[in-house]
């Protein structure tokens, strides 16, 4: 339901599904007609003998039938092509001031950047795209490594993320909800585990979410969390990850400032809980073979505190 092109939850997907229905009806009619004629021809008994020289006399009559059928085919495909052009034109029309979001593809996760409205700081997150319901969202997309493709079937068709280029697509959600998406262009060993979720929220909820995301990371409160932060800052984590408000400012991996607020980790591979975080950090390659994230040589106690700290970063 929440990953199906047949259950549109946005203007674009709805128009595409509508066009699809037209094509489906026409296709079914064509199929039934052609196969119906074929069956009638095959089933009919006849006593015309089997001499090719007499049978070939009916060529002219047969050709008229063929001509009529080709004419109908031409009309049908022309009509379908026109309905396609009309739909595409209406899909390309602007529907108001869009929210600009930049998406960068990585093997195998999605980096999501919200450009700053009114000079406020930039929001960075990963594998989750929060959008306000009813407002068009313009995605500017590129890739850091290989070609990926952004696809959330309930909302819009797909668009590739190509290194060295910027591609655009706009979408809008009509109803609040969580819509699943997945990378659609084969991008290596973990192409299957490169999911993204679009969280369409009411404008008020979206603004609230955005305000939280704009803040620096929450300071640790318990001893365990404090130790976790220490572990984070003193281990290899900081080479790749950033947490605003800490010493960590790596840019290779996902920004973890509000990692605790996300529903899953490793691009939809695991639900986001302290237990799964331990599992993931201890040995990422076991969860997602081929991932760029190395396993951390940490003691069990360090791992637990680190996971607790990260989970607290709501």
């Amino acid at each position, binding site marked *: 339901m929440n*990953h*199906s*092109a*047949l259950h549109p939850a946005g203007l674009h*997907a709805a128009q*595409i599904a509508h*066009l*699809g229905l037209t*094509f489906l009806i026409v*296709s079914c009619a*064509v199929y039934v007609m*052609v*196969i119906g004629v*074929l069956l009638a*021809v*095959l089933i009919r008994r006849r006593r*015309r003998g*089997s001499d*090719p*020289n007499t*049978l070939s006399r009916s*060529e002219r009559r*047969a*050709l008229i*039938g*063929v001509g009529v*059928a*080709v004419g109908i*085919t*031409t009309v049908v*495909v022309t009509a379908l*092509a026109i309905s*396609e*052009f009309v739909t*595409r034109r209406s899909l*390309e029309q602007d529907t108001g001031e869009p929210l600009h979001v930049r998406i960068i593809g990585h093997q195998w996760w999605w980096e999501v950047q919200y450009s700053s409205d009114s000079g406020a700081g930039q929001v960075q997150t990963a594998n989750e795209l929060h959008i306000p319901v009813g407002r068009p969202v313009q995605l500017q997309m590129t890739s850091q*490594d290989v*070609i990926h493709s952004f696809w959330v*079937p309930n909302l*819009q*068709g*797909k*668009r*590739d993320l190509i*290194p*060295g*280029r910027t*591609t655009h*697509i706009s979408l809008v959600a009509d109803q609040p909800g969580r819509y699943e998406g*997945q990378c*659609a*262009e*084969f991008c290596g*060993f*973990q*192409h*299957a*585990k490169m999911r993204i979720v679009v969280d369409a929220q009411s404008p008020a909820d979206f603004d609230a979410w955005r305000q939280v995301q704009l803040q620096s990371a929450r300071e640790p409160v318990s001893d365990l969390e404090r130790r976790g932060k220490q572990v984070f800052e003193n281990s290899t984590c900081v080479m790749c990850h950033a947490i605003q408000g800490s010493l960590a400012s790596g840019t290779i991996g996902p920004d973890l400032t509000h990692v605790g607020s996300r529903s899953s980790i490793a691009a*939809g591979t695991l639900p986001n809980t302290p237990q799964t975080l331990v599992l993931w950090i201890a040995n990422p390659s076991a969860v997602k*073979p081929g991932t760029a994230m190395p396993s951390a040589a940490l003691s069990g106690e360090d791992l637990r505190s680190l996971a607790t700290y990260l989970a607290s970063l709501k």
Partner: protein
Amino acid sequence: MSYPEENEAALHRTWSERPGWLGWLMAVNHRTIAKRYLVTTLLFFVAAGIMALLMRLQLARPENTFLDTDRYSQLFSMHGSVMMFLFAVPIMEAVGVYLVPLMVGARNIAFPRLNAFSYWIFLFGGLMFFAAFLLNTGPEAGWFSYVPLAGPDYSPGKRTDFWAQLITFTELSALVVSIEIIVTALKMRAPGMSLDRIPLLVWAEVVTAFMVIFAMPAVMLSSTFLITDRLVSTHFYNPAGGGDPLLWQHLFWFFGHPEVYIIFVPALGMISQIIPTFARRPVVGYLGLVMALVITAFLAFGLWVHHMFATGLPPLGMSFFTAASILIAIPTGLQIFCWIATLATGGQVRFATPLLFVIGFFFTFIIGGLTGVWLGSTTLDSQLHDTYFVVAHLHYVLIGGAIMPLFGAFYFWFPKVTGRLLSESLGKWNFWLFFIGFHVTFFPMHALGLDGMTRRIYTYGADRGWQELNLVATVGAFILAISVLVFIVNVIVSLRRGALAGDNPWNASTLEWATRSPPPPYNFQFIPVVESRDPLWQKGERRHVVGLSNEVRSVLITAIHDAQPDHTTTFPSPSLWPLLSALATTGLFVGSIFTPWAVLWGSIPVAVGLIGWFWPSHRETEINRRLEIKPESPAR
């Protein structure tokens, strides 16, 4: 001995292959080579089919651990590459290599040594590819090898290099076969077989051969760019170095879309031979059918961008490619209507296995053709692209459009090739298991694609709700596998115990049925003279050519448009040089995977092989001089 017997004995001496294993390696007869092609391609087909079964097992349930992602990536890349490059294209050409000379009344294919060379190159390329796969060096970036994923940065190691070099092997062999088929069909037809009397399968093979010649250079270029990017650090596809990853896609699909028609068009030709035979009348709309093949070939080169709609191209370009993609439904529709009209105005239909497979084609291919119209629409394609809907579509057009007619063709021409008919009862099992297995496997994939299941994923989460339909598809794949097994059993049993076929078991109309089954090494004792489109259905005595030498491999060359006799020429005898040249070429190709210097040093043995190949022998020169006849009157 009477003259015909003497003539036959002399022809036999002249045209037979040499005896022994050395003779086996020196073979140049088109039917010998074609049979090797057929057996080899069918073995590759079975191997790639087994890979598909392994993938279906992995996908039968969510979060399955039967295959890891590395193994799965290699399997789907192999499956696609083998099916396209080592099965579908070469088997369609093999049918052409076998049938085109017979159908036009020739004694052998043009350039017979080149034909032998093409087979060896094809075989060695295929063996190299499978050897690499068995050594865990199979391709991992898909049969389409999109850069940068297949480039030096993201596919280190030699896996992609073996893939790129496989392309070089198969394209080389496909190109030379195409040239042979074109020359045979245009210059070696029996006298009187003017352009409007050429059997439709020959037309289809000629059109296909021209498509190969125009399409293959694009992929040879793109794969060579890929090899040099990987081997000597050029930057054709590297955006950081001024290259462009989309350049690969344009070049690859400029080849890749015609490739589909290269597989499909010969199958159309097969249908155009089978249907009139069973309808007992000449095909309706011969001229329209030929034009449809040619138009399809032209349009095929204007469609490639519909594989790239998701890359975000300018709207005007998209409209052009949408129009071209949807337009191709018209020539395809024309052919389908002509065939139905042929059946409708023909005699009582006999439902033999070849015709069953052709009827299966109608039921299956039309679905694939209609979903193809969907995919030609940029709007719908944006949802359907790279999902299981496309997997369903492509198997409907390729299996329904090409492989079902191909199986029909196996049943139709098997008696000509072996002298024995395939069993009809096993044939019915073969057909029904194939038809049911196919639809059970691939129909559910339409729904999976619409439900968001993307292609080339090695696993999926249980939360997706895709498991039921995937399980159904896996069950279907095994039914399909059983059907292929039935076919293999049928071939083995019928080879020993099948009913003897006689010259023309189906009472068909074209020249290959005028000679013995299997045909003698020289194909026809006398080259026939053709006076109509369906020579064997013509009433009255059939005429033939006399005066061709039976002491040397003398063949008649005729004019392109009306097939008036023009001159005779002597065909080369069996030779070991094609094999040696192919071995030298293989050394060069495989070596260049590892070092660019192999291109330099490897060209020396290739040059030696080619010089040996063309070195004239004293014996043949002597005979030719003795047989040379001075024209009696200088003017003609």
